C-alpha cells in the first residue's frame, strides 16, 4: 500500500498568458482514492490531462505508474484507465459491442475480451442490459458501462473526471461501491467530483483554487484544519475566502 503510484512535482501549464496549473506537487499511493476538488476552471481537468499524457506540461513533471509524464506517453496510456463526464460510448452499439470495441482499442485478444466482459458483467451488474443498445440505458447504467470500458484492460490507475455528474443518489451510492471495490483490489483512483458528500469517501483530498493547491489531506484533516463540519464548508471557505 505504500508504493507510490503517481508522483507530481512543480507541475505547471500555461495557455498563452493564462496559467491553468501553477506548480502543483502531490503524491498518490497505490490503492488510494485521491479526490481533486475545485471550482470549474480551477485547473483539475488540465492536471488530469497532463497526468494521462494528453497534454504536455509547460514546466515541472512527474510519473504515473513509474512512467515519465514528459516522455513516456504511450506507456502511460497502457497503464491507465480514463472515464470523463462525457463518456465516449457508442450509442448505436450494444453494451457487449461497446466492450468489444474498447477491447480492440486496447489491443486485447478476443478471448481476453470475453473473459473480461464476463468479469465486468458480474462486477458491474450489467446482466440483462448486455445485448441492449447503449442509447436505451438509464444514465446510471451508462455510467457503469463507461467505467467498465475504462477498466477493461485492468489498468493500475484509473482517472475519473466527474463520473457521477447528474446521477440520482442511489445510482451514485452504487457507483461508489464499485470504486471502493477497485481500490480494495489495489487500483489507484484519481477522481474529481462536485458532490461534496462523495468527497468524504476519498482517502485524501486535494483542493485546487485558481490553478494552485490550497489544501491537501484526508477529509478528517481538512475539516479539522479549517474548523468546518463538512467538506462542503471547507470548500466554500477555501474557494470563496481565497
Amino acid at each position, binding site marked *: 500500500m505504500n508504493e507510490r503510484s503517481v508522483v507530481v512535482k512543480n507541475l505547471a501549464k500555461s495557455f498563452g498568458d493564462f496559467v491553468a496549473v501553477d506548480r502543483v506537487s502531490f503524491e498518490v499511493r497505490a490503492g488510494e482514492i485521491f479526490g481533486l476538488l475545485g471550482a470549474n*476552471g480551477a485547473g483539475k481537468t488540465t492536471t488530469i490531462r497532463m497526468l494521462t499524457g494528453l497534454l504536455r506540461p509547460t514546466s515541472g513533471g512527474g510519473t504515473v505508474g513509474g512512467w515519465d509524464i514528459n516522455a513516456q506517453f504511450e506507456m502511460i496510456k497502457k497503464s491507465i484507465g480514463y472515464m470523463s463526464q462525457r463518456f465516449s460510448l457508442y450509442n448505436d452499439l450494444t453494451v457487449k459491442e461497446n466492450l468489444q470495441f474498447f477491447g480492440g482499442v486496447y489491443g486485447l485478444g478476443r478471448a481476453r475480451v470475453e473473459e473480461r466482459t464476463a468479469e465486468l458483467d458480474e462486477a458491474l451488474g450489467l446482466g440483462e442490459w448486455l445485448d441492449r443498445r447503449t442509447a436505451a440505458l*438509464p444514465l446510471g447504467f451508462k455510467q457503469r458501462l463507461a467505467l467498465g470500458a475504462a477498466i477493461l484492460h485492468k489498468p493500475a490507475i484509473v482517472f475519473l473526471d466527474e463520473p457521477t455528474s447528474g*446521477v440520482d443518489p442511489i445510482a451514485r*451510492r452504487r457507483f461508489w461501491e464499485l470504486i471502493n471495490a477497485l481500490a480494495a483490489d489495489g487500483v489507484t483512483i484519481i477522481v474529481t467530483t462536485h458532490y461534496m458528500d462523495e468527497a468524504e*469517501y476519498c482517502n485524501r483530498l486535494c483542493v485546487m483554487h485558481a490553478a494552485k493547491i490550497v489544501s491537501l489531506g484526508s477529509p478528517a484533516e481538512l475539516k479539522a484544519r479549517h474548523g468546518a463540519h463538512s467538506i462542503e464548508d471547507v*470548500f466554500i471557505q477555501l474557494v470563496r475566502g481565497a
Partner: protein
Amino acid sequence: MNDPAIRVEGISKSHGAAVALSSVSFAVERGEMFGLIGPDGAGKTTLMRILTSLIDADEGEAWVLGFPVRSGAARVREAIGYMPQHFSLYSDLTVAENIRFFADLFGVAKEARVARTEELLDFSRLGPFVKRRAGALSGGMKQKLALSCALVHTPRVLVLDEPTTGVDPVSRRDFWDMLERLRAQGVTVVVSTPYMNEASLCRHMVFIHKGRILASGTVGEITALFRGTVFSVEGPNLQAISTRLKNAVEPELVRILGDAVQVLALGRSREEVGALLETMRQGGVVSHSREIPPGVEDTFVSLMRE
C-alpha cells in the same frame, strides 16, 4: 388571475412502448419555488417539454397561467422561460451577442431589449465579461448566461432542467441565490435537480419515479413519508464506521455526511440497527449515536425501495 402558475391534469406520454409519464397531476402556485425530483429517466424532462409546449402529451392537459399548452402554445411561450439541460449558447458569440440573439428570437423590441440586457448583466454579474466569447466562460458563468438568455423576454414562469448539474458548490449557491431573487420578484420557478440538498430549497416538490408521482408536498410533508429510522453515528474514524455498517446492512443505506455517518434502518428494525451500533460503541469504533429526523435524500432512498 386566480389560475395557478401551472396546472397539470392527467398527463400521460409514451415514446413508442416506453411509458414516460403516466397520469401525472399537480399544481404550482404563482410566485413559488417548485422542485421536480426523481431518478434519471423518471420523466422530468418529458414533463418540462410538455409544459413548455415543445411536445404534446398523449393524454391530459396542462395550463400555464391559465393558457392551455396544446392550443395556446404562442401565449405559453411568451409567458414561460425555459433553460434546457443542454442549453445552446453560441460559443463564437460574446455574452452580449448571445443575449441579443435570444432577444431577437423572442421579438423583444429595441428599447426594452437595451434596458433588459442592462438588468440581466447586473443581475447575473456578467457585466465585466460582456465582450467575452461564451466559449471562453467558466462552467458557472455559462450557466448564468444561459439563465439570462431564458429571462430575456421577462417570463413570469421559469422552467429549469437540472441547471446546476456538474457545477461546483460555490457557483451552485450563487445560482440558487439568483433563482431566489427572481422568485422574490414574483417569478414562478420550476426546477429539477439531482442534488437533494437543493430540493430542500423548494417550497413544494413532486417526486417522480417511472413516470408517476410517488409523493408531493413541502419538505416536511415529503420527509413525513419516510418509513424507518435515521441514525447519526460519530466516532474517531468515519470511513471505518462506514465500512463496518455497509457490510452489516446494505451499502446504499450508509453514507458519510459531514462529521458523522448516517445509516438508515430500512427493511430492518430500529432495534436491530440500534443493537449493532451499541456493539460498535462497546468495541470503541463508535463514540456516540443518535436518531435524527429524515432528510429529503433519505426519503428518496426509502420511496425508491418501496
